[in-house]
């Protein structure tokens, strides 16, 4: 951007005559077009969510709804028990985020601040758990939780989050290692215990990294379909993805895509909100953890 200026810093302004940079224009146009393309599916999602069942079947599809079916947004609460599903998803995601933050931050702190022999071995062991695909542990885990009588409760979906996750521990460890040792020395001089240093020094300084982890954990739990399908069986305990998958479940009906789009629009709300709140932290978090 500034290269043009830098290349001829001494040229008189009259000769440049404020000509518009064609590269700049081209990239601007490309950006606008790509943005439009990216937003198109989103636009169709919202547009379809406002169409009537008959209009949804039309071909070629209409761009904007012919008659705006706002009632879809109230219908979804009747056809799907949408309120219950939403609440369940929020509860599970909320506890998962809390659990992930608590456990991962604690473990990561340990890995970042203590030097012990075999440190690397344990860390590599931890990271290698990332390579185990979920289906490999699915049945043993199911048997375990089933023996604990946890089937058809939220516990199998929440409790594992309190046992840390390799990726998040890795992310936070990288961040904690960048904190200057002097801060902790100062803490020690003031008579801080380790847990207190973790809580009052490490955590407040790591807001960007924690926000990143929180968003990842939330999105993971919010979108998860397989685990709730396995562990939950009664409809009053289902989560949003299960309920939405069930909308297209019938082999015998035309799926109510318009209602599914309503559900998708509403399901997006918490993620967009969370992202909007944490955006500053989130972007910073990726930049910091990525570079250092």
């Amino acid at each position, binding site marked *: 951007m500034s290269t043009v200026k830098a290349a001829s810093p001494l040229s008189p302004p009259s000769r440049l005559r404020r000509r518009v940079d064609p590269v700049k224009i081209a990239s601007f146009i490309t950006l606008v077009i790509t943005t439009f393309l990216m937003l198109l599916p989103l636009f169709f999602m919202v547009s379809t969510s406002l169409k009537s069942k008959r209009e949804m079947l039309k071909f070629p599809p209409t761009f904007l709804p012919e008659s705006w079916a706002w009632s879809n947004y109230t219908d979804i609460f009747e056809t799907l028990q949408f309120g219950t599903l939403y609440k369940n998803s929020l509860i599970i995601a909320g506890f998962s985020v809390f659990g992930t933050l608590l456990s991962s931050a604690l473990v990561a702190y340990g890995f970042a601040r203590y030097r012990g022999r075999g440190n690397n071995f344990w860390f590599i062991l931890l990271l290698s758990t990332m390579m185990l695909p979920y289906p490999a542990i699915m049945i043993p885990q199911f048997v375990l939780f089933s023996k604990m009588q946890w089937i058809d409760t939220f516990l199998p979906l929440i409790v594992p989050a309190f046992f840390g996750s390799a990726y998040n521990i890795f992310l936070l460890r990288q961040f904690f290692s960048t904190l200057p040792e002097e801060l902790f020395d100062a803490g020690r001089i003031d008579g801080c215990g380790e847990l207190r240093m973790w809580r009052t020094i490490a955590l407040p300084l790591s807001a960007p990294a924690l926000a990143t982890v929180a968003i990842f954990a939330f999105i993971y739990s919010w979108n998860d379909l397989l685990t709730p399908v396995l562990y939950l069986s009664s409809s009053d305990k289902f989560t949003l993805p*299960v309920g939405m998958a*069930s909308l297209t479940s019938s082999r015998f009906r035309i799926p109510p895509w318009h209602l599914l789009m309503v559900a998708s629009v509403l399901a997006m709300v918490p993620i967009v909100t969370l992202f909007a709140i944490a955006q500053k932290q989130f972007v910073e978090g990726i930049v910091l953890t990525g570079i250092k």
Partner: protein
Amino acid sequence: MNKIMKSKRPAVLLTTALTAMVAISGCGGGKSAGNVAAGDSGAGNSGGSGEQVTISHYTIDSEDRTFIEKLIPEFEKEHPNIKVKVEKAPYEQFDSKLQTLIAGGNSPDVTSHYGYGGFAEYYNKDMLLDLTDLIKEDGFKAEDYNIPGNLMKIYTVNGRTYGIPVNMYVTLMLYNKDMFDAAGVSYPPSDYEDKSWTFERMVEDAKKMTLVSDDIAKTQYGVDFTWAERDMRPLYFGAEPYSEDTWTNGGVPSETHFDSPEVIAAYQKLFDLVFKDKVSPTSEWSKSVAGQNGDPFVAGKIGMSIGGSWNLAGANDFPFKIGVAAVPWGGNEQVRSTLFVDPLLILKDSKHPKEAFEWIKYLMTTEVQEKSIELSGGNPPVNTEAAEVYYKHFDGIDPQDVKKVYEGAVKYGYESYNHLITNYSQINDMFINELQPVETGHKTLEEVMPVIQKKVTEIIKR
């Protein structure tokens, strides 16, 4: 490694972790064992004192399956010692959840083959309870529930019964009345005995309604002849791809004939609809027009559509008038319609098979079957008396037509392979993949069928 061995800290950590694990699992195990003992004490004596037991019915989470929840209160009133719990999963996850439930020792009591896996697969995996003794002990008679005898035979292997039929879907023709009116073509008959309704006449009628234009919005086709699963289609012209012994051999055919001239000729006739007569859409066109609904007929772009009777259930939502007709006569005396009969099954690991059978019997009674039609939005019952109610269920369609089509379909029907051949989901996937180049016009049947023959043989032997 040496370092680690010497270092004490990891060892301490490991010990702590192990202790914690043992503590947790021990604690959990103890608790669960206690609970099981307490909960199951009822099961032990369930035969005797009529103590309360809970049975679970595992099904697909969709309106046309979960309607049974509404039937439970009445059943529990009549059977105070039995409680019914419905467990569900979305269609796509039905099979994997069922396998996990069984592997995890949480097997449901009653279910059906509602997922991709069929009866033969369950049977061969030894998942099903042999109901023969239960039926004998109970004095259950199919006639009392108006179940046609030939339907009971479908889920009987070597004289042992493994399932009770509950719903029966047939293959029929749906047609777009508006399109017939616009082209001035007379409606096709619903009577299977009307032998003037032939495959050739269908093609002639279809030509009058086909309109291919550069504007995709204006293009419409006369007929969509996607008749049953791909491997079954030759049967319609009388060519048999699987050997006779499939039905007596536990779903394992000793021979298949997918590369025989008769079978190839039968497929050729169907593909000619697309590429020679050009009265049927290509698969690409169907996909682009139908989008995720998967059916261009629903979008009003097809005159006649051969499909399962489940398509009727959505009929009240279609943006045009529809009628039902017989599947035209393909020149073969027997097979014109595929039957898809869904049974209720009791799983082998069921702890309360007797109570589960009570629940199945309840679902089979005429009164409940009649109620189920309305509650499910149009599931066709096997109970012939309840079927009378089913025929009247569809707005704008003459009940006489539905009845004729159903009765003709049963007379000229053939039970679908998809429930009765082993490893069927793999066979079906393979067919979809291998036939794709033919459907898009990139390969000929002569090139593809020997490959399919080889692959089917391999899958069956698995």
